[in-house]
C-alpha cells in the first residue's frame, strides 16, 4: 500500500525512471574513523517521497550514513548531494534535514508543545504561525490532550510521537529516523509502523529510516538497502529483497531460509540441475541470473514457506526429499517444522495453521516428505 500513490494508479518506482532526479546522491562516499572504515566508497540514490530503509546488523555503517546526512559527520572522501547541491559545507542547523533520534532526545525541561515549537522558533515564523503549526503537528500525531505535559509525564509511545512531530514540524525535505521504534514493544511497534507510513504519505516527506529489524524495514519501506561492513549489499524493493536476494548474505539476513550447498549444471533454457548430496536425486531449479556457472559450485536458498510437507511422496514432484520431524515450533498462525534429513541437515518448513492444533497431520518423529517447485528456490553462485 505504501508503494502506490493515491493520486496516480501507477506504481511508485522513481528509481526505475531514468528521467527522475534523485533527492539525495551519495557519490563514492567513504568515511573513516582513524583506522576503522565505517563506509567504503558507497554510491546510492534516494528519490523524493521515498520511504527508504537502511538495514543491517549493528556496526554495519547504517547509522554513520544517516549521521552524514544530518551533518553530524562529514565524509572522509566523496560527495553527498541534496537536490543537486553538495551538502558538505552546510552545518546541521542549516540543513533542510531533520532527524528523529533513537533516544527521542526530547528536551526534558520543555512541555510537549514547547518541544514541537523548538525548531520553529529558530526559523523566521511569527508567533501565530508557530502556534498554528504546533497545533497541526499535535493533531497529526494525535497528542492534543497532552500538549502541556512534560516528556516524563507521558508514555513511551507518546514520547515517540512527540519526537516525530518535532522532527516533522519544520517540514524538512528529508526526515531521518534512527531506530524509531526500537524502544516500543512489539504490538505498539506494529501499530506505529502503519501510522508512520500514513504520516509519510500525508506529508509527502522523504523518509530515511535506520533499523536492524528486517520485518520493520519490509513493512514500511518502498526500498530497502541491506548493508554490511560499510558496503551496500543489495538495494531493492522489499519483495525484491525477499524473493530475489542477490547473495547468500541477504538471503540469510532477511527472513528464514534453508541453504543447500552443491553443484549446478546448466540444462539450457535457464534450467539447472543442482547436485547437493552423494546418492541423492539432484534438484531442478530455474534461475534468470546470468552469473550462474554452466558447471560449478552453487547454493540453493529456499524459504520455509515455499516447502510443502506431505506424508507420501507427492506425484510428479520434481524436488522431493524424505526426513524425520525433529521439532515443531508453534507460532500461532503458522507452525515451523524442523525436519532432519538422513544426511543430518535440518530443513525448516512452514505451514499455515488453518486447522486446529489437535488435528495437525504430523507429529514428532513422523517420516515426512518435503517438496518444492523448480521456481521456489533461489540459485546463487558460490558457497558464500
Amino acid at each position, binding site marked *: 500500500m505504501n508503494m502506490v500513490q493515491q493520486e496516480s494508479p501507477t506504481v511508485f518506482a522513481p528509481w526505475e525512471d531514468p528521467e527522475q532526479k534523485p533527492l539525495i546522491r551519495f557519490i563514492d562516499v567513504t568515511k573513516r574513523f582513524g583506522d576503522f572504515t565505517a563506509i567504503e566508497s558507497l554510491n546510492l540514490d534516494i528519490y523524493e517521497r521515498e520511504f527508504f530503509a537502511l538495514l543491517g546488523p549493528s556496526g554495519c555503517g547504517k547509522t554513520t550514513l544517516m549521521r552524514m546526512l*544530518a*551533518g*553530524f559527520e562529514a565524509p572522509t572522501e566523496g560527495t553527498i548531494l541534496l537536490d543537486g547541491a553538495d551538502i558538505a559545507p552546510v*552545518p*546541521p*542547523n*542549516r540543513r533542510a*534535514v*531533520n*532527524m528523529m*533520534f*533513537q*533516544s527521542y*532526545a526530547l*528536551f*526534558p*525541561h520543555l512541555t510537549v508543545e514547547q518541544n514541537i515549537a*523548538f*525548531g520553529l522558533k*529558530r*526559523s523566521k515564523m511569527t508567533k501565530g504561525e508557530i502556534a498554528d503549526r504546533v497545533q497541526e503537528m499535535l493533531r497529526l500525531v494525535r497528542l492534543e490532550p497532552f500538549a502541556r505535559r*512534560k516528556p*516524563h509525564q507521558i508514555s513511551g509511545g507518546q514520547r515517540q510521537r512527540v519526537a516525530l512531530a*518535532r*522532527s516533522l514540524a*519544520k517540514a524538512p525535505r528529508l526526515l531521518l529516523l534512527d531506530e524509531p521504534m526500537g524502544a516500543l514493544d512489539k504490538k505498539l511497534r506494529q501499530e506505529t509502523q502503519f501510522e508512520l507510513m500514513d504520516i509519510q504519505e500525508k506529508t509527502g516527506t522523504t523518509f530515511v529510516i535506520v533499523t536492524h529489524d528486517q520485518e520493520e524495514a519490509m513493512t514500511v519501506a518502498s526500498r530497502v538497502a541491506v548493508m554490511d561492513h560499510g558496503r551496500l549489499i543489495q538495494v531493492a524493493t522489499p519483495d525484491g529483497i525477499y524473493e530475489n536476494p542477490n547473495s547468500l548474505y541477504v538471503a540469510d539476513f532477511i527472513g528464514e531460509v534453508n541453504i543447500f550447498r552443491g553443484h549446478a549444471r546448466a540444462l539450457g533454457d535457464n534450467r539447472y540441475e543442482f547436485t547437493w548430496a552423494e546418492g541423492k536425486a539432484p534438484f531442478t531449479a530455474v534461475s534468470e541470473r546470468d552469473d550462474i556457472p554452466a558447471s560449478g559450485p552453487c547454493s540453493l536458498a529456499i524459504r520455509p514457506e515455499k516447502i510443502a510437507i506431505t506424508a507420501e511422496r507427492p506425484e510428479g514432484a520434481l524436488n522431493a526429499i524424505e526426513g524425520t520431524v525433529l521439532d515443531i515450533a508453534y507460532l500461532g498462525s503458522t507452525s515451523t517444522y524442523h525436519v532432519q534429513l538422513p544426511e543430518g541437515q535440518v530443513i525448516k518448513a512452514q505451514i499455515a495453521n488453518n486447522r486446529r492444533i489437535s488435528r495437525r497431520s504430523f507429529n514428532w518423529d513422523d517420516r515426512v516428505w518435503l517438496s518444492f517447485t523448480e521456481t521456489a528456490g533461489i540459485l546463487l553462485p558460490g558457497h558464500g
Partner: protein
Amino acid sequence: MNLRRALLIALPYAWLLALFLVPFGIVLKISLSDMALAIPPYVPTLDIAAGWTGLKEFFSQLDFENFVFLTEDDLYWRAYLSSLRIAALSTLITLIVGFPIAYGMSRASDAWRPTLMMLVILPFWTSFLIRVYSWMGILSQQGLLNQFLLWTGLISEPLTILNTNIAVYIGIVYTYLPFMILPIYASLEKLDDSLLEAAEDLGCSRLQAFWLVTVPLARAGVIAGCFLVFIPAIGEFVIPSVLGGSRTLMIGKVLWEEFFSNRDWPVASAVAVVLLLILVVPIILFQRNEQRQREQEQ
C-alpha cells in the same frame, strides 16, 4: 511488621531530636536568660529539686531582653547584612568559577573524568584550617602572590590583600568551590549528547544549544551548588577571622567574640538563634529544589 516500620521512622527522628532539637532548645533557653558572673555564666538555672514553684520561678525569669538588645545596637544587624552580602557575592563568584570547571569535567573523556573528580576532592584530604592558614602565606605583603607579581613587573609596590574583604572572598571561593562544582557536574554529566545534537538539528547554533539546553538542564545543579555555598558561608567564622581584617564584619565572628571575649552567652545565643532563623528560608528553598529535581527524574 508495624513495629519495625515505626522503629525505622523513629530512629532518624530520635537522632534529630538528640543532636539538633535538644541543643537548639538549650541555646534558645540561654538566649532568654541573663548574663551572670557565675558558672555557667547565666541565670536562671533550672532547679528541679524546688519542684513546681521552682519551675514557675524559672520561667518567670526568662525574657526577650537579648533579642531587643540586638535591634538596639546597629553592630548586629550590620554584621548580619554584611554576612549576607559577602555570602551572596562569594556564591556568585564561586558559580562563575565553578560552572566552567564542572562543564569541562562533564565534556572530558571517560578516561579523564575520575582523575578530574579526584583533583576536585583532593583538597579535603588536608585540614581546612591548614589550607586557610596557607592562604596567609600566599596573600601577605611578602607572600608568594606579591613576590610573583613584583617579579613579573606587573606591580611595583606589594598589594595589600591579606586582612581585607578580598582575602575573605578568595578564602570562601577557594574553600567552597568543590561544593559548587560537584552538584553542577552531577547534573551536566547526565546530559545526553543527543539533546545537543537534536537542538542543532532543529536550527540552533552551538551557543544557542548551550543556552537553551545545557544551562536549563544544569539549573537544578546550579541551585543546589549555590545553596551549598551560600548557607555555610553566611555563618563562616574561620575564614574572616584568619584572612579578614578588623573591618571585616561577619556574624560568625561577632558570635565568637560574644561567646569567648565578652563571655556574654545569652547575647551570643540570641545572635545564633537569629542566624538560624535567617538560614531557615534558604534551607527550605534548597530542600524544595532537591525534591522537585527528584520528581523530574522519575
